[in-house]
C-alpha cells in the first residue's frame, strides 16, 4: 500500500494547510495554529458553543463538521491520537460566547483525559462553563451491560448534527447536552473491516486482515471486532450487522429511522448502495420508515476498506433537528 504524502511527520500539518487553502472562506485556524480549527460562520450572540476533538485520519470526522449549523470548533490531534488538553482548552475558549460550551467527542481514553483536563483548565482560568457528552455508539465494542465502555464511531455525526441544530436554535447548554444525549440513546453503529490502514508515521499497516476474511465489529483504529470470519456476500454481511444493531436497539413498525452506510475509505460507493438496498428492504418490510439516508464517507480510517452502518431512531424533535440546514466544507444535508 502506497500513500500520496510528503514527510510523514508533516502529514497533519499539510492536511490542515490544504483545508485552509481550499476552504479558508468558511473555516479558519486559531491564530494560525494548525491544530485548532474554528468556524468562520457568524453565529448569534450567546449561542452555546459546541466543540469536538480527536485524532486525525478520519475525515470528514472530526473537523469536517465545523461549520454552519454544526460545530464551532475542533481540536486536531495527530493521526489516531488525542489532541493535547492545551489545544482543547484553546478551542473551548475560542468557542465560548458567554453561555458555555458542550464538548462532544468519541469515548477514547486519551480524548477523555485530555478533554477533562481542558474543561478544568477553562473553568479555573477563564470561568467557562462546560458540559461533556461522550459518543459511545459502537455496539461491537462492549456488550449492552457495559455500554459505558463503548467506543464512539460514525454515529457521532448524527450527534453533531442534532446538537448543532439545537444550539443554533438558541437552546441553553444543559438542553443542548440533553438533546445530544437523547440522540445518542437512539444511535447504534457497527462496522466491518476488509483491509487495514497505515498510520503515516508508522509506514506500514498496524494490524492485518487475511485476504479471504472480514472482521466484524472492528474499530476505526483497527481495534479487534467480535468475530473474524470468511468473507461473505453483501447481503449476508448486512444481515449480520443489522441483526446486531436491532438486538441492541429494537425497531418496530411505525418507527422512523435514518440509516447511515459509511465507507471507511477504500470501499466504492457502489458497494455502500448495495448494502443500503438490503437494509432498506429489511427495514421497510418490518414497517420501519426510512428517511434522510446518509450513504457515503462520513467517518473514515484513511485507506481502510470496509463500512459501518448506523441506525438513528427518530422522534419528531430529533427528525426536525436532523433536517435543519447545515453546511460545512465536508457536509451538507441540502441534498440528503
Amino acid at each position: 500500500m502506497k500513500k500520496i504524502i510528503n514527510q510523514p511527520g508533516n502529514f497533519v500539518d499539510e492536511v490542515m494547510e490544504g483545508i485552509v487553502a481550499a476552504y479558508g472562506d468558511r473555516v479558519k485556524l486559531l491564530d494560525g495554529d494548525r491544530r485548532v480549527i474554528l468556524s468562520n460562520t457568524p453565529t448569534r450572540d450567546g449561542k452555546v458553543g459546541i466543540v469536538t476533538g480527536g485524532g486525525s485520519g478520519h475525515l470528514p470526522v472530526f473537523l469536517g463538521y465545523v461549520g454552519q449549523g454544526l460545530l464551532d470548533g475542533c481540536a486536531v490531534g495527530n493521526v489516531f491520537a488525542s489532541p493535547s488538553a492545551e489545544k482543547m482548552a484553546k478551542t473551548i475558549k475560542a468557542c465560548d460566547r458567554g453561555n458555555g460550551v458542550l464538548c462532544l467527542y468519541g469515548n477514547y481514553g486519551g480524548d477523555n483525559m485530555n478533554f477533562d483536563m481542558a474543561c478544568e483548565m477553562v473553568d479555573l482560568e477563564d470561568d467557562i462553563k462546560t458540559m461533556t457528552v461522550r459518543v459511545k455508539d459502537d455496539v461491537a465494542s462492549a456488550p449492552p451491560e457495559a455500554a459505558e465502555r463503548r467506543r464512539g464511531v460514525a454515529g457521532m455525526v448524527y450527534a453533531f448534527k442534532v446538537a448543532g441544530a439545537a444550539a443554533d436554535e438558541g437552546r441553553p447548554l444543559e438542553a443542548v447536552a440533553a438533546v445530544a444525549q437523547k440522540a445518542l440513546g437512539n444511535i447504534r453503529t457497527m462496522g466491518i473491516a476488509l483491509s487495514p490502514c497505515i498510520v503515516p508515521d508508522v509506514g506500514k499497516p498496524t494490524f492485518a486482515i487475511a485476504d479471504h476474511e472480514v472482521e466484524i465489529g472492528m474499530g476505526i483504529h483497527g481495534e479487534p471486532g467480535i468475530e473474524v470470519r470468511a468473507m461473505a456476500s453483501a447481503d449476508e454481511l448486512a444481515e449480520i450487522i443489522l441483526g446486531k444493531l436491532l438486538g441492541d436497539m429494537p425497531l418496530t413498525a411505525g418507527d422512523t429511522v435514518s440509516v447511515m452506510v459509511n465507507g471507511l475509505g477504500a470501499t466504492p460507493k457502489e458497494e455502500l448502495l448495495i448494502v443500503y438496498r438490503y437494509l432498506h428492504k429489511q427495514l421497510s418490510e418490518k414497517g420501519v420508515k426510512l428517511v434522510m439516508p446518509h450513504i457515503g464517507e462520513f467517518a473514515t480510517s484513511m485507506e481502510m476498506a470496509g463500512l459501518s452502518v448506523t441506525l438513528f431512531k427518530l422522534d419528531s424533535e430529533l427528525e426536525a433537528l436532523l433536517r435543519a440546514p447545515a453546511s460545512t466544507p465536508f457536509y451538507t444535508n441540502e441534498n440528503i
Partner: protein
Amino acid sequence: MLNAQTLRMAMGEIASVMAENRQYLIELDQRNGDGDLGISMSDGFAAASAFVHTSEETDLGKLLVGASKVFNEAAPSSLGTIMSFCMMGMARTLKGHESADTALVGEAMVAGVAKIMERANSKPGEKTVLDALDPAARALCDHAGEGASAAWQAAAKAAAEGSDSTANMQAVHGRAAYYGDKTIGMIDGGSVAGKLIFEALNQAIQKMD
C-alpha cells in the same frame, strides 16, 4: 539530591532511554493497541527534556508543571497524558523546593501516582503503567533511609518486577481492554515505559555516585 540541575540530567537520561526503546515500545503497543506508545514516549520526554534544559526556573514544582504541560502538548496520547498527570502530581509536593532529598522525591512520586489514579480512574493490578510506577514509588519511600543509590536500585527493581507481573493480568483500560482475555500472557507496554523510567533514573543516580 534533586535540584534543577539534576532534574535536567534525569529528564535527559529518560529521554534517551525512550528514544532507544522507541521501536520496542511501538511493537509492544501494536499487539494490543495502536503502536503509538514508542512515538509518544520518545516525543514526550524529548520535549520535556528540552523544556527543563532551556528553563531558568529553579523551583522544582514550577519546573515540573512546565514539563507536564510541554509533555502533554507533545504527546497527548493516553500514556502521554498519564505522564503529564504524574508530573503535575509531583509538582504539588515539590512546589517551593529548590532541592529535594530521596525521601521527598519518593513522597512526590507517590503523589504523582495518586494523581494518575484519580484522573485516569485506575489502580494497580489492572495491567497498566501503574503496576510499574506504584511499587517503584513506594519502594523509593521505603528505602529512602538507605541512601539514594540503594533506594533507586530498589525502586528500579520494583518497577521491573511490577512490569513483569502485568503479563498475568487482563487489561481493563485503554485500547488493550478491547482485546479482553487475549491480553493475558503479554506484558503491558505502558508498564514497560514505567520500568524504563526508573531504569533511566537509577542509571543517572549511579553515575552521579
